[in-house]
């Protein structure tokens, strides 16, 4: 009498038969029929046609039958929404049932029926169940809120269910608390804003910690996960939470252990007490090791996380190397992860053990694993210098086995060892050459070719060896082709006498017969280099190579920190932040808390110290990309550029660099103190007529006519000298009486312009007398946005009256001296600013050459970052910075001999564009 009988069918239509059985009068028969329906459902058959008949069975006292019908409903209600309404009454009635099991079952099932019409009826019963006297019902209801939120988030918010859910966090029953936490965190995850619904504060945390000790293992996971989102307010709090969580490390459930590890790893960042940290570190190792004796799937997840932990805090597991030794019947995914961690833990102290293990693995059966083991030996050599010799010996042993894939992997890693330790192990080259014929994988071939080219002078028959590769040049992988090209050029530079023919052969193969643009370009570059200046070619091709770094596969520190916050999650398995792969997740990214009690101060230290370590890696990447522009060779014709992309600017801007440097120097001199008559540079750049700095100064304009100024006439202008803004004014007394007691005051303005010192006008000012006054200004005053932006309202007081006027400050006086943006930063910033922030203007009737534009703008602190020529038009890329720190990036298009320049201005704050345009106009017309 097993359930298998429900699968047997008769030839007469199955559905038809079930239908009649479901409508049978006999209870027993009905139940059996429903079971048959469920059986069909579990194996994936479509039995939705029986919907009305099954729903009819719902009204019953028999709990098993009721449950079965509910199971059916959950699966099919969506496909039959109108029919599903029929069930509503029974649900509502069941929610009032005296038996808590039935109340809970009803509210639970209703939440699973994802039909809009039903959810309307769900609200009232759910509200009641959230306040039910029985905790079992309450905890079921808590989960139901999350279900409802998934179906109709607005409804949940409108009905105030979130508030009720939050109240459950203070419930007396720990199981209810745990479910409320779980429901809230699920709602949080799916809410589009990602802003936490519940503010975690000390009382809430305390409640959670209390519930943690009493609830089920699953509840503990949810609570620990939400604790990991909390940032303790100080070190003391972090310590006390850590202490209360530590017992969870001894839990039998691996998920609880790992979630506890996550919280501890995160909070540890905040704790300065080294002794506390040491004790905690010691407590972390055993549970992590224990995870490795669980089921292989659990081991895998644990290993992926240990990989992160070892990178963050290598001390925790430094003595546990042996537990990562591979057992031959471990699943392959466990083996590969263990190997990775072994290399991370390898140090001088344990390298002997590690090496003998790796050698053992290299003779295993699984090809992937063997390959990785051989690579690991190479990585050890690079990581632990003292072991390099032993590693090389081991690799040689492995090469002697002549197992094809072992030899190939070994050669690939030996290439890296050569690069790390030049002139040390070249004696083994002859052994490597013996295996030349067996290499059939591109990477191994390329590596071998690299070795031959690099050490051509030590290999007598290098030319023959390379020639043998050359025969099948066209069939090779492009990686091998590129390597072969370079290797032969190297050989030629080292032994020009007898290899001329070979090099010509490869150059013609690369440039004429190949479709691969990379190969062709490299071929042309070499060709031109060799034909114009062999000495330069030598310098370029045989240049000293940078040493390869020890651990190339370390995660970037900021990413690592983020992932530490995601220990135990999918992110930790993929080693990617959740935002990178979880659908529709716009949530806030997590970051480790800052160390130290000072909070703000120390956190800024943390971020600055984190920054340099991140940016270099980014930098070197781009640096590599752009390193071409250091090559004098790259004087190729301009390529038709489509828009402002990637490295074009830099690639072609090579020639200008030198020029720019001079200009840059001039720019510096501007900033230098008194550029009086003496400075040579000052002379060169002091072209702007009388003005010493060369910066453009607008002619004085009448600001306050005498009629309005009660006899006082003020005209003036603004200028920037030695990094200081000046308001240069001429006061003329047109009145009949002497004036005295001058003072000046500015209204709040866009750039916070403020007199740096009191106005000094020689007083008294007699009638019809004029005097000059130069008022230094700074930009530290109160800021208020004006319209137009550069509007300034001034009040001048004298013994007669207070006089008001407004004037426009030419924008260029706000351009600061350190407005030269790094080339790479410029590129990045240009890309980062959205196109809607780009404003275009035209400047007409211009007659400058691009060089004079560069120079003129330079004198006004507008720095040319790059210049290129596209289809005869000169393009200038310039940057400038305003006193308030706003960067403005500008592209100017100067047609040959044309008079209409096109100006594209990009800035995060688009408001400044008009002013910048005006400044260009002013400067270039002056």
């Amino acid at each position: 009498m097993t359930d298998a009988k429900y699968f047997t069918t008769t030839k007469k239509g199955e559905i038809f038969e079930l239908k009649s059985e479901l409508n049978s009068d006999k209870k027993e028969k009905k139940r059996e029929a429903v079971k048959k329906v469920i059986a069909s459902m579990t194996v994936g058959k479509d039995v939705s046609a029986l919907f009305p008949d099954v729903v009819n069975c719902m009204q019953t006292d028999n709990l098993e039958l009721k449950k079965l019908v509910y199971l059916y409903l959950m699966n099919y209600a969506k496909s039959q929404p109108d029919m599903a309404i029929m069930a509503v009454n029974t649900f509502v009635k069941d929610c009032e049932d005296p038996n808590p099991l039935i109340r809970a079952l009803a509210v639970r099932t209703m939440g699973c029926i994802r039909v809009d019409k039903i959810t309307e009826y769900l609200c009232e019963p759910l509200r009641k169940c959230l306040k039910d006297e029985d905790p079992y019902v309450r905890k079921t209801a808590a989960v139901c809120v999350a279900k409802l939120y998934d179906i109709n988030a607005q409804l949940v918010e409108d009905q105030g269910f979130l508030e009720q859910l939050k109240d459950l966090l203070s419930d007396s029953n720990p199981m209810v608390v745990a479910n409320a936490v779980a429901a809230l965190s699920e709602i949080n995850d799916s809410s589009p804003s990602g802003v936490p619904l519940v503010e975690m504060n000390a009382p809430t945390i305390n409640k959670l910690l209390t519930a943690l000790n009493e609830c089920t293992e699953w509840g503990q996971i949810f609570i620990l996960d939400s604790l990991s989102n909390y940032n303790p307010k100080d070190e003391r709090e972090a310590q006390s939470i850590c202490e209360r969580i530590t017992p969870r490390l001894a839990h039998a459930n691996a998920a609880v252990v790992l979630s506890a590890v996550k919280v501890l790893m995160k909070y540890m960042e905040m704790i300065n007490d080294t002794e506390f940290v040491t004790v905690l570190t010691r407590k972390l190792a055993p549970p992590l090791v224990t995870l490795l004796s669980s089921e292989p799937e659990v081991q895998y997840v644990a290993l992926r996380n240990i990989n992160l932990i070892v990178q963050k805090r290598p001390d925790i597991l430094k003595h546990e190397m042996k537990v990562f030794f591979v057992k031959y019947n471990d699943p392959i995914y466990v083996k590969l992860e263990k190997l990775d961690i072994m290399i991370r833990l390898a140090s001088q102290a344990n390298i002997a053990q590690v090496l003998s293990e790796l050698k053992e693995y290299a003779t295993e059966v699984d090809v992937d694993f063997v390959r990785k083991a051989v690579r690991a030996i190479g990585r050890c050599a690079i990581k632990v210098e003292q072991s390099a010799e032993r590693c090389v010996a081991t690799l040689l042993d492995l090469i002697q086995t002549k197992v094809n894939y072992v030899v190939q992997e070994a050669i690939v890693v030996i290439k890296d060892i050569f690069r790390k330790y030049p002139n040390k192990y070249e004696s083994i080259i002859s052994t490597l050459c013996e295996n030349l014929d067996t290499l059939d994988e591109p990477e191994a071939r390329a590596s071998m070719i690299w070795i031959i080219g690099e050490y051509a002078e030590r290999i007598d028959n290098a030319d023959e060896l390379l020639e043998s590769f050359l025969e099948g040049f066209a069939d090779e992988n492009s990686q091998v082709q590129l390597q072969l090209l370079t290797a032969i050029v190297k050989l030629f530079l080292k032994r020009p006498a007898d290899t001329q023919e070979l090099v010509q052969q490869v150059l013609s193969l690369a440039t004429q017969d190949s479709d691969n643009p990379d190969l062709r370009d490299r071929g042309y570059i070499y060709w031109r280099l060799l034909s114009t200046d062999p000495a330069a070619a030598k310098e370029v091709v045989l240049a000293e190579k940078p040493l390869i770094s020890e651990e190339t596969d370390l995660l970037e520190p900021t990413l690592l920190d983020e992932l530490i916050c995601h220990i135990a999650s999918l992110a930790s398995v993929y080693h990617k932040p959740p935002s990178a792969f979880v659908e529709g997740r716009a949530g806030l990214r997590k970051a480790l808390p800052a160390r130290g009690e000072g909070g703000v101060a120390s956190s800024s230290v943390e971020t600055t110290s984190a920054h340099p370590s991140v940016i270099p890696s980014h930098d070197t990447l781009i640096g590599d990309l752009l390193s071409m522009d250091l090559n004098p060779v790259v004087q190729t014709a301009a390529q038709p550029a489509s828009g402002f992309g990637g490295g074009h600017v830099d690639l072609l801007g090579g020639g200008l660099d030198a020029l720019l440097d001079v200009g840059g120097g001039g720019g510096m001199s501007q900033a230098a103190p008194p550029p009086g008559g003496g400075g040579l540079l000052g002379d060169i750049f002091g072209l702007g007529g009388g003005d010493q700095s060369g910066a453009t100064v607008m002619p004085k304009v009448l600001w306050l006519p005498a009629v309005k100024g009660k006899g006082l006439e003020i005209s003036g202008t603004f200028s920037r000298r030695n990094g200081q803004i000046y308001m240069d004014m001429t006061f003329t007394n047109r009145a009949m009486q002497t004036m005295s007691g001058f003072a000046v005051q500015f209204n709040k303005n866009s750039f916070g312009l403020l007199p740096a010192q009191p106005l000094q006008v020689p007083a008294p000012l007699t009638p019809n007398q004029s005097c000059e006054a130069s008022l230094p200004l700074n930009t530290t005053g109160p800021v208020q946005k004006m319209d137009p932006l550069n509007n300034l309202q001034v009040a001048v007081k004298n013994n007669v009256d207070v006089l008001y006027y407004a004037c426009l400050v030419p924008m260029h006086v706000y351009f600061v001296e350190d407005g030269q943006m790094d080339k790479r930063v410029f590129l990045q910033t240009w890309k980062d600013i959205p196109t809607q922030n780009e404003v275009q203007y035209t400047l007409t009737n211009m007659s400058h050459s691009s060089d004079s534009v560069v120079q003129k703008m330079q004198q006004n602190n507008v720095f040319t970052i790059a210049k290129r020529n596209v289809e005869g038009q000169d393009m200038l890329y310039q940057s400038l910075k305003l006193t308030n720190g706003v960067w403005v990036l500008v592209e100017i298009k100067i047609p040959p001999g044309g008079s209409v320049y096109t100006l594209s201005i990009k800035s995060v704050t688009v408001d400044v564009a008009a002013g910048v345009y005006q400044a260009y106009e002013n400067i270039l017309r002056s």
Partner: protein
Amino acid sequence: MIHSLFIINVSGDVFMEKHWKSVISRSVCDYFFEEQKKISSPVDMPPVVATPHHYLITIFRNNLYFVATTTTEVAPLFVLEFLHRVVDIFEDYFGECNETIIKEHYVIIYELLDEMLDNGFPLATESNILKELIKPPNILRTIANTVTGKTNVSCTLPSGQLSNIPWRRSGVKYANNEAYFDVIEEVDAIIDKNGSTVFAEIQGYIDCCIKLSGMPDLTMTFVNPRSLDDLSLHPCIRFKRWENEKVLSFIPPDGNFRLISYHISSQSIVAIPIYLKHYISFREGKLDITVGPKQTMGRQVEEVSLEIPMPKSVANCNLTASQGRYTFDPVSKVFHWDVGKIDITKLPNIKGSISLGAGAGPVEANPTVTVHFVINQMAVSGLKVSRLDMYGEKYRPFKGVKYITKAGKYQFRL
């Protein structure tokens, strides 16, 4: 959270599916099958597979794949632990868990799965609570149910569900009150060609079978609790007392459960109970292996067996064993020798020739020997229970402790 569960057999049939949220088409399993094609052995199935819209989290047990799907960020260990729990519960209910059993009891299985998870959140995963909700099948009850029209589903809320001790139901009554403890230690070891230990550690468990009436409160003390520094405790154990006094104090669940599991790491010295003297050469086609006891404190080593996955080029073996039977499967190339007990006066030996297949190249890999053995009445770590006391109830229970040492992953490299 867990969205759906698919149970798949090794030949790739999805024979059971359960959805806790909306229905996910079983076509999502196609990604699983794609992965499956890439692997050479079913155990190598990667536990976490990403598909464009779902994550498949898989365990492989009893030759079945249990594939859970999720759509959101979730703790994978939570899912894995849950899946293992599902299998444990099935085994607990039906004695074993395989395709036939699942198909036979699909209604109970379906009800169980529904009871264990709600909307992806675990609801009831304790065996004793589930058994109160859904009665395990037995023939007597099935017959009785057919006669009386009763069902396997209980109508009342399980008592343990919400108490502070969810692992124990109230009102337990036994005529004979008994408590049995098995201290089981598994030795994991890797021993290299020369017989030196590369790595050895002990994975220990205390499994209990407790049939005590009422609410007994037990304490267990050890002669030498020092060796237990890395252990996982059943939730019933009071952690504070363990930490301060090194005493296990607990109100036990009813029936069978694992009280603690512990780990004695590779850093302490682990006794190696068995050694191997071996000579194997594929070039000469010779094999000669002798098994002997090493540090067994005079106890007898039983149920010894050896397993060697031979290189692919081996065609056949022609050996004579001094005791026990050996087999060689020419398809899987697995050599198996069932040794039995080790007689110290005459150590078991097997020798003879191995023949390589025609045209087979040189043997590239050295095989590894996996050894199994059992030693009764000994815990290799030296752990010993000193006393067990019961409070809270008046009767005198019968108590028993048994020690067993077994091979875990015990491997010799040849």
